[in-house]
């Protein structure tokens, strides 16, 4: 049967992708950001996933104001990196895993989570930046297929932390009931504290971020109860992206060990946070 051994939490700041794509990761500004992923890249080699289930949000790229699904599951054979206004990132096409994706869709919908199914979807930096930081530079293809789950965090209200956490549990039940013997790794991406808009732009709250990471590992139920108001007030209007980490956490065991943590301010306008959690 398929199994989940570990989860990854990771910011998906677009400028991190640009730094990799333009080869400036050794510059003093970027070096401390990437230093924290050295261990992660080795860990990815040692814990090679067969499939990654990646929770992220689209930034008004694939989804315009016309269609705003709360949860959209990528069931296509492949996903093209999108042009976000600066040309597409020079990274490989993301291959999906159609059999597992449709199994998850069916299982989770019967479990009463009404997902939108995407048989065609472009993916933006929200999906490709976490792959880049965790795998490092890749040549012609990504090391494994990816199942994207796009979450609306742009138009208020995003799904609640609890809803995300419960969906993660449903995703786990789906993976556990898939007959092939494969290692499915779950990524929750976005955050950490940041505000990109209006007069309060540039807000960073390391105390909030640290508490969030501590709760994620030690008391995920309490973490899942953080309200939207608290995210927006304390972690910035775009800090609400952190709800997506609860999907990842819900897919893990109740007890996990945090085997790696990395936190750095800033990458562009954002606090970069990253954890690796292994099931215990």
């Amino acid at each position, binding site marked *: 049967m398929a199994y989940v051994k570990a989860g990854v939490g990771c910011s998906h700041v677009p400028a991190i992708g640009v730094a990799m794509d333009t080869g400036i990761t050794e510059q003093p500004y970027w070096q401390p950001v990437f230093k924290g992923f050295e261990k992660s890249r080795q860990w990815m080699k040692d814990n090679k996933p067969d499939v990654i289930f990646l929770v992220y949000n689209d930034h008004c790229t694939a989804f315009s104001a016309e269609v705003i699904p709360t949860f959209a599951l990528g069931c296509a054979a492949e996903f093209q990196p999108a042009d976000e206004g600066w040309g597409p990132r020079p990274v490989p096409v993301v291959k999906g895993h159609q059999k597992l994706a449709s199994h998850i869709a069916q299982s989770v919908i019967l479990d009463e989570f009404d997902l939108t199914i995407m048989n065609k979807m472009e993916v933006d930096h929200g999906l490709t930046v976490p792959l880049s930081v965790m795998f490092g530079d890749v040549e012609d293809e990504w090391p494994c297929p990816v199942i994207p789950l796009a979450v609306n965090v742009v138009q208020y209200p995003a799904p609640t932390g609890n809803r995300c956490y419960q969906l993660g549990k449903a995703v786990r039940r789906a993976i556990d009931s898939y007959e092939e013997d494969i290692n499915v790794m779950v990524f929750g991406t976005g955050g950490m504290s940041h505000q990109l808009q209006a007069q309060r732009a540039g807000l*960073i709250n390391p105390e909030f971020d640290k508490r969030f990471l501590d709760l994620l590992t030690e008391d995920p139920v309490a973490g899942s109860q953080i309200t939207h*108001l608290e995210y927006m007030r304390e972690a910035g209007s775009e800090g609400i992206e952190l709800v997506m980490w609860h999907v990842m956490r819900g897919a893990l065991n109740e007890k996990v060990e945090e085997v790696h943590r990395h936190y750095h301010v800033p990458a562009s306008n954002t606090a970069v946070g990253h954890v690796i959690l292994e099931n215990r």
Partner: protein
Amino acid sequence: MAKEYEDIPGTFVFDADRSREGYHLNMFCISLRLAENREAFKADPEAYMALYPMTDAQRQAVRDRAWNGMLELGGNIYYTAKLAANDGITFQELAAKMTGMASEEYRDMMVKGGRSIEGNRSKIEWENK
């Protein structure tokens, strides 16, 4: 519905009301994601804007590149960022403009740890600074 989040200072929460009001402005902005549309906009900005039934105030905000004004009129930052990208403005430069800081000053603030949460939680705190 009560909007507790309206008490957060210097912030436009993009809720259903703003989304409804800003729909055509946002659709205009996102169209600039594609190179052919950027070229058409560059060739004749007024004619290109006319394709989108925005309000006069929204059109003027676009002309003025009133970045906070667009947000106030229902624009969302991820959409207005496409207009900024069209103008060759990076996300960080755009953020600086919205705060009224010079780009270097803003970048410096970020390198030093960003804008503190202290004094920036509520409108009362904000006004008493």
